[in-house]
């Protein structure tokens, strides 16, 4: 079954009238992990923002569907309720809003939007404690305001905790490995791997092969200048690591 299907997606930056995505075609099957690699400025992060509904981008052509449903006209919160999740490259700090309040608000808002009953605070607490423990997130971090005073590693773990709590169908990880040391990366990868299952798909955006050592992808795409220029198996990531993007891009051109 197809989870995410992107066809001929063209996107411009609204303010600058600058073309970023120039015809992206990408299909992610349910239960699979896809990786997108590519040099800086190739449009990887833009793709993640467009899929999750950030303002400031104009889709000039093409389509994107989640389980067959067009998502491009949906608000970000509607996409979230439909199962889309973006783990941010730079998680935002929100002083004055407790992490728990935030998580519970988000979880119940999504459930409400899907017509499901809200989770009681007792059940919620139980759930969040168990999942936080797996990610080595302590009670203090849960109590603190969202991402305020968190280290880079703590912020990324917090993203994975949100993912674990919200149980999305389509998880996009935008350079989740940036700013992480090896131990922190392993912890994050474990969190992601624990969520891998038949009903869920992942799109892992990264510059480097090393994250893919820990989160083994089924399919690897190379993105350059707003397009997917090459698609292959895990060996493609190894090739990038060894030879850089230069050879691959020359070959694709």
């Amino acid at each position, binding site marked *: 079954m197809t989870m995410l299907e992107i066809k001929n997606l063209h996107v411009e930056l609204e303010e600058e009238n600058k073309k970023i995505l120039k015809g992206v075609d990408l299909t992610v099957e349910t239960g699979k992990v896809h990786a997108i690699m590519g040099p800086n400025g190739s449009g990887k992060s833009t793709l993640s923002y467009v899929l999750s*509904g950030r303002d400031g981008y104009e889709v000039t052509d093409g389509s994107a569907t989640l389980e067959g449903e067009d998502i491009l006209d949906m608000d970000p919160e509607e996409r979230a309720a439909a199962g889309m999740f973006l783990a941010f490259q730079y998680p935002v700090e929100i002083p004055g809003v407790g992490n728990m309040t935030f998580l519970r608000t988000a979880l119940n808002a999504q459930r409400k939007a899907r017509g499901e009953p809200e989770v009681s605070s007792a059940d919620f607490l139980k759930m969040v404690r168990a999942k936080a423990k797996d990610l080595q997130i302590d009670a203090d971090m849960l109590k603190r*305001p969202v991402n305020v005073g968190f280290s880079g590693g703590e912020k990324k773990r917090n993203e994975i905790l949100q993912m674990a709590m919200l149980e999305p169908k389509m998880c996009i990880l935008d350079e989740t490995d940036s700013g992480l040391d090896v131990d922190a990366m392993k912890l994050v990868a474990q969190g992601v791997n624990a969520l891998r299952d038949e009903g869920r798909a992942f799109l892992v955006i990264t510059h480097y092969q090393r994250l893919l050592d820990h989160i083994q992808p089924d399919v690897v795409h190379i993105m350059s200048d707003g397009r997917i220029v090459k698609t292959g198996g895990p060996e493609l990531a190894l090739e990038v690591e060894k030879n850089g993007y230069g050879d691959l891009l020359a070959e694709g051109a």
Partner: protein
Amino acid sequence: MALPKAKQDATDARLADLEIPVSGGWSLAARQDAAERLVQMGLPQPRDEYWRFTRPKDLIAPEPPAAAPMDESDESPVFSDKGACTLVFRDGVFDADASDSDLPAGVSITRLAVSQDNDIDWASGLYGKLELEGQTPVQRPLAALNTAFATDGLIIDVTDKVETPILIRYLHERDDSDPVLHHLVRLHADTELTLLEVGAPGARCNTVMEVDVAEDATLHHVRDQGRNHDRRTNTHAFARLGARSTYKSFTLSLNGALSRNEQIVSFTGDDAVAHVAGAAIGDGKTDPVHHDDTVFVTHDALRCESRQVFKKVLKNGAVGVFQGKILVKKDAQKTDGYQISQSLLLDDDSQFLAKPELEIYADDVACSHGSTTGAIDEDALFYLRSRGVPKPRAEDLLVLSFLAEALQEIEDETLADELNERLAAWLGRHAV
């Protein structure tokens, strides 16, 4: 010197029907003095520098503009579960039946209206005294009007560390009530009190609180000025701080046609601390909102710390004003003065006018001030929405986030938490 004609006319018109409400007793002399001072300085006019951003018309008019009371029966009164000793004023008139009669140990309270023939020296020494001192270098005619014509108020004498808070609950029930209340609060050395004020005193109100905090004493003052849309509110708090004393005052305001809150703080003893803070939300959707915080802190002692933190959230044409000044006199070395005023504008129609000022004559001080105006942080908004939080709820969370720094100025977390929860509920219902 003769007053400008407009000022003279406005003053004459206001004073025509006002009479000093006592014919004798310990406050008479101070009242007569204040009345004379008022005639000399005249009531504020739009061209006065101190009233540049806030039109005084509704505050000085002989009759208050009509203001409908708000039905607040949808929730329990703020701070009603804090076990406080509660004293009630209904449209400015003390309601003994609704008030607690047992006072906690360590505090004695009487009322301005009934104590005139009592022999309370300290009150006669304080009444109008700090108000008078606070008239320099900036005139505050409405405070002088209050001293002269106040009909009632609490006289609170604190002689020990008091755990039970004193709560003044104001009820606004008539659409033409116009209370003038004057409270005196004295804290003896090494004492402590939490004083809470809740609600709008009337359709229009003029309240003055004179606070005298002796050495090593602490006053926590937290007030919630209510939610009534039409109300006109004019408050002055004059605080005099002795050595090593602490004064912490926080004000929450929601809407209100016109609010002008003045805080005048003066350090007279060394090593004292004063924090004044406020959070205001104004939504001009159904009625206009204008909210003005005016603060004047005078450092005239060594090593004192003052902090001003004011935050306003404004939408649908609401106007916010902040005028804050830190004056550091020549001998007030090692002063630590801080001031921040910030507004969150939720649309293009609202505005925030800020006048932060420092005036420093000592050469070894640390003083800073800042003022910012901004919109909702789009990154944070997207972050919340991407997690499934609907846009209106996400905006509410960011409003609370913005106000959090001001609420953190309240030392007692249970009080801060309650105000935060109320804010969240009001925002959620779009009831503010």
